[in-house]
């Protein structure tokens, strides 16, 4: 099902690209404005991504220009310890730790922009449930309406790294 969705999106991109010669004309003011807005939006997101203050902006369901992937995991380790543990794991992973909030128990990590990826913001929050901790992950793309499943894969990789780090 997921592959079908990817194929459909790929076909849609090909169709839009194929039709571009009909609607793209040199020096067309409308297209210039749209291009300017897209670049501006990208730069704006790039500037504000490195702070937890804009968490709601990136993770909001109304922000249609970023793709979100949410996941939860329960650990039988106290919240304070789990918080420190995840920071340690992120520092040894492909993610870059950007900001932590010890009062709110929130972490922001980012993946860098590469040829394969526009980059993503990973927000992790911790909720205590007795002596256990519920970790809530939300991965938001920086500038991508559709994700090809990379955020899901990155969260799975990070969870695997957390699991393997519990073998000391």
């Amino acid at each position, binding site marked *: 099902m997921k592959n079908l969705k990817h194929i459909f999106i790929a076909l849609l991109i090909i169709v839009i690209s194929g039709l571009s010669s009909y609607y793209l004309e040199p020096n067309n003011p409308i297209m210039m404005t749209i291009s300017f807005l897209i670049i501006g939006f990208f730069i704006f997101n790039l500037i504000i991504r490195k702070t937890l203050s804009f968490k709601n902006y990136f993770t909001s369901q109304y922000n249609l220009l970023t793709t979100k992937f949410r996941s939860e995991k329960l650990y*039988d*380790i*106290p919240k304070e*310890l789990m918080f*420190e*543990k995840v920071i*340690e794991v992120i520092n040894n992973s492909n993610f870059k730790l950007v900001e932590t909030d010890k009062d709110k128990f929130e972490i922001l990590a980012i993946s860098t922009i590469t040829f394969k990826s526009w980059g993503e913001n990973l927000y992790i929050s911790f909720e205590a449930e007795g002596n256990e901790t519920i970790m809530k992950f939300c991965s938001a793309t920086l500038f991508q309406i559709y994700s090809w499943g990379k955020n899901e894969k990155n969260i799975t990789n990070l969870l695997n790294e957390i*699991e393997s*780090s*519990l*073998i*000391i």
Partner: protein
Amino acid sequence: MAIVVNLDVMLAKRKMKLKELSEKVGVSTVNLSILKQGKVKAIRFSTLDSICLALDCQPGDILEYVE
């Protein structure tokens, strides 16, 4: 849980802080705290070996089976 970790007891007996043990063993304090609470998934022989060496004790002093 059937296996009880008595690391805190051994640390108290040796009058050693967790941070000190962490430096001697080369395992982070976070990992040792998780081990102390018995929440780790597994412990490597090499880690156990280092802990026993640092605390001058036997594995049985740290790990105990309780029914």
